[in-house]
C-alpha cells in the first residue's frame, strides 16, 4: 500500500461575506487577484513548490467557478497518478449527508480521503491569504521540535494585534495559550491559518470534537484549544515574509496596492517561485500612442488607450481614450469606455462601464468603491452607484 509523507487540506468553502458583491457568484478563494490569479493560486502554488503533491480542496459555497478552475490541477502541476488535487464537496453517505458545519467538520467528513493516502502529517490551509511560504521548512521545524501540532504565526504590529488569533508562547516557542481577538493582547504572534498536525493526533481530535455537542467544529475555536488543554506538544512556527488576509474589501485592495511598490513586499515575478494560474492564454497587451501607464500591473489581453496610475488591470480589460484610472483594481474582462474616471475602486469581472462615468472618490477618507459582479450593468457620470439599463 502506497502512502504519502504529508498532504494538504485546503479550506475553500467560505463565502467571504465581508467581500460583499465580489463574492455574490463565487467563493472567496476564487476571487481574482493580482491581475492574473485567483486567491487559491497562492496556497496551491505554495504546495507545489513545497513538495506537496496531494491537496484536498474543501468546497461548499458557490463551488462552480472553483470546481471548474481547479479542474485536474494541471496548472499547478497537481495532475498526478497517485495524489494530485481533489475537489471535495459535502456528500451523502449510507446514513445521509450534511453540509460542512465548520472547518473541523469539513476535514472530519473527509477522513476517508486522508486515510486513503495514509499520511504522517496533514497541513491545513485556508484559501483567503496572499503569501509565499515554503511549507517544507515548517515541516522540518515540526519534526525537529517533536511537535504534535504546529501553527504558523507572524508578528503583527502590537496596535493591530487584537484583530487576530494570538499565540502566547514560552521561550522555546511552545504555545502556552491561544486567544482569539483579545482586548488586551499578551503577544503579537498572529495565527496565519496554516496548521500542521500529526495525522493520528488530528484524526483522534476530529472524531472527539464531532461528538461534542457544544463544539462549533472550528479549528481555531475548538480543535486547537482542546489540543492545548490536553497538554500536547503544540509549537508556533514563526514565518517571516509577506502575508496578508484578503477577507475584506479594504485588505483586498490594500494587498493589490502592495504589489505596486518599487520593491514590492511580495514579488509575483520570482522565477524560482512562480505563481501558477489557469486560463492563461491571451494576446499580448496593446498600449496605444495616447496611453500613459505608471506604477501599475497590466496583464495580457488588455488594450489601453487611457492613463493608468498605480492600478492593476487584469486580463482582457479594455480602457478607452482620455480615461483615467488611479489607485484601483480592475478585474478580468472589464470594458471601460472613453473619458471615464476611476479612483480608489475595485471593479469586478465582466462589468461594462460607459463613457463619462465617474467612479470612486479621491478623498483619502473615503471607503473603497466596489462595483459588483454583474454583466452589462452600466454606470454613468451623475451618480456612481446608479444603474441604468
Amino acid at each position: 500500500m502506497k502512502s504519502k509523507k504529508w498532504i494538504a487540506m485546503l479550506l475553500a468553502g467560505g463565502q467571504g461575506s465581508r467581500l460583499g458583491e465580489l463574492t455574490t457568484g463565487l467563493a472567496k478563494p476564487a476571487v481574482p487577484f493580482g491581475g492574473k490569479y485567483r486567491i487559491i493560486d497562492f496556497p496551491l502554488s505554495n504546495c507545489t513548490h513545497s513538495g506537496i503533491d496531494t491537496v484536498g480542496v474543501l468546497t461548499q459555497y458557490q463551488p462552480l467557478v472553483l470546481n471548474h478552475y481547479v479542474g485536474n490541477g494541471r496548472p499547478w502541476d497537481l495532475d498526478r497518478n497517485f495524489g494530485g488535487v481533489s475537489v471535495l464537496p459535502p456528500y451523502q453517505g449510507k446514513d445521509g449527508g450534511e453540509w460542512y458545519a465548520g472547518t473541523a467538520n469539513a476535514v472530519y467528513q473527509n477522513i476517508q480521503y486522508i486515510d486513503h493516502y495514509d499520511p504522517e502529517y496533514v497541513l491545513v490551509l485556508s484559501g483567503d491569504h496572499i503569501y509565499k511560504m515554503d511549507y517544507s521548512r515548517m515541516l522540518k521545524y515540526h519534526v525537529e521540535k517533536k511537535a504534535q501540532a504546529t501553527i504558523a504565526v507572524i508578528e503583527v504590529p502590537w496596535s493591530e494585534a487584537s484583530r487576530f488569533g494570538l499565540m502566547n508562547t514560552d521561550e522555546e516557542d511552545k504555545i502556552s495559550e491561544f486567544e482569539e481577538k483579545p482586548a488586551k493582547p499578551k503577544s503579537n504572534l498572529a495565527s496565519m491559518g496554516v496548521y500542521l498536525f500529526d495525522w493520528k493526533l488530528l484524526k483522534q481530535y476530529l472524531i472527539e470534537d464531532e461528538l461534542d455537542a457544544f463544539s462549533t467544529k472550528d479549528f481555531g475555536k475548538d480543535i486547537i484549544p482542546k489540543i492545548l488543554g490536553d497538554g500536547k506538544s503544540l509549537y508556533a512556527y514563526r514565518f517571516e515574509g509577506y502575508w496578508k488576509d484578503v477577507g475584506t474589501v479594504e485588505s483586498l485592495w490594500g494587498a493589490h496596492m502592495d504589489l505596486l511598490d518599487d520593491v514590492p513586499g511580495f514579488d509575483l515575478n520570482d522565477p524560482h517561485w512562480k505563481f501558477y494560474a489557469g486560463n492563461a492564454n491571451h494576446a499580448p497587451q496593446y498600449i496605444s500612442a495616447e496611453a500613459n501607464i505608471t506604477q501599475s500591473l497590466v496583464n495580457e489581453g488588455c488594450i489601453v488607450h487611457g492613463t493608468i496610475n498605480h492600478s492593476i488591470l487584469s486580463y482582457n480589460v479594455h480602457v478607452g481614450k482620455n480615461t483615467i484610472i488611479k489607485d484601483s483594481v480592475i478585474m478580468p474582462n472589464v470594458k471601460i469606455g472613453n473619458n471615464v474616471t476611476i479612483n480608489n475602486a475595485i471593479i469586478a469581472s465582466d462589468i461594462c462601464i460607459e463613457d463619462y462615468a465617474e467612479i470612486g472618490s479621491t478623498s483619502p477618507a473615503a471607503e473603497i468603491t466596489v462595483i459588483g459582479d454583474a454583466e452589462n450593468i452600466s454606470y454613468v457620470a451623475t451618480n456612481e452607484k446608479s444603474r441604468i439599463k
Partner: protein
Amino acid sequence: MDNVIGVINLVNEKQYLKELTSHRCLSAVPFGGRYRLIDFTMSNFVHADITKVAVFTKEKYRSIMDHLGSGKEWDLDRRNGGLFILPPTHPDELIKGDLQQFHDHIEFFNRSPEDTVVISPGHHVCKMDFQEIVDHHKDSCADITVVYKDFDGESVDKPIYHKYSIQNDGRVKNIELYTSPEQGDSVGLETFVIKKDLLIEIIKTCCENGEYDFLKDGVKANLHHLKVNSYHYKGYFPFIHSISSYYKSNMEFLNPELAQTFFYDTWDIYTKIKHEAPVKYSITSKVTNSLVANGCDIEGTVENSIIFRGVKIRKGAVVKNSIIMQKGEIHEGTYLENVITDKQVNITSEQVVIGDSIPRIVKKADVV
C-alpha cells in the same frame, strides 16, 4: 472536423531569417510578442477541430519540440489523435524531399482511419479557416486542392515562391516552381488538401521512382490526370522571407485595428504557457504604441515596439521601433532603435545600438 489529419510540413523550410534561424527552425521563430510562428497554423487547425496533427520536422527542432510539448496548450493531448512529432529517421543522410520523410513515416498515414489530409507549412502568420477550405475541397470533388494568394509582399532576392496559373473554373493549369513573383501573381502557400489514399499512393509511387518533392513530383506532375483545384485565400497574410519582411509584419500588429481583428475578433491563437506575472510598470515607465507580453518589468521608455515575455527594460533605457525577444535585459541609459534582439540578450548600460532600414540583429544570448 472528423476525418481530417493536419500535417505541418517543416521539411521544405528555408533559413530566410539569417541569425534568427541559425539555431532554430523557421517555425520556431518568435513572433508578435508571445508566439512562435508555428502557433498560428497549430491554432488554425485546432479551430477547425482538426484534432490529429503531425509535425514533420527536418532540422534544429529542439526548440519546436520544447515548445509543442504534449500539445496540451492547443488541446492536442488526446487519447485519440492529438499531436505527433515525426522527425527524420536517417540522421546521417541528407533528406531528399518531403515525400521521403512522409514515406519514412508511412505507417502514420496507414494507421490513421481519417480519409482527408491537410498539409501546411509551419511559418504562416494568418487566420486561415481550414473548415472552409476542406468544405471547398469536398464540394468541388477535387483530388487535390491547393491554396494560393495574390502576391503582395516585398520583392524577393532569390526565386523562392511557386506561381500557379489558375483557370476560370478554379482548376490549376500550370505551376511554375521557384519564381520571383510580381505583385498580384497567384502564389502558392504550400498548403494542400488531399485524400489520404491518394497521398499514400503518391508517396509510394514517387519514392519508388526516386522522386521526393510533393509539389513538383506529386502535384505538378499530376496536373493532367488529377483534378487539382484551387482555393483563393484573401485574408491577412504577410509574406515573410527576409529580416525586413519579418520585421515589418511584426510591426503591422501595432496597428490597433489589425491587432483587434486578428487577436480578439476571431479565434484564439494558443502558445506555450509560461506562467509569467502581469507586466510591471514603474513610476518612470513611458510606453506608447507597443505590444507587451507578461513577465516584463518596464522602467524605461518604449515606443513603437514589440516586447516579448520576461523582458526587463531598466530606468532611462529607450527602446524605439524594436523587437525585444524573451528574457532580454536592456540596462540603464541604453538607447535602441530599429533593432531586433533575439532571446536572452543583455544590452549593458549606456549603450547605443541603432539599425537602419534593415534592422540590426543582436544574436541569441549576446551581451552588448
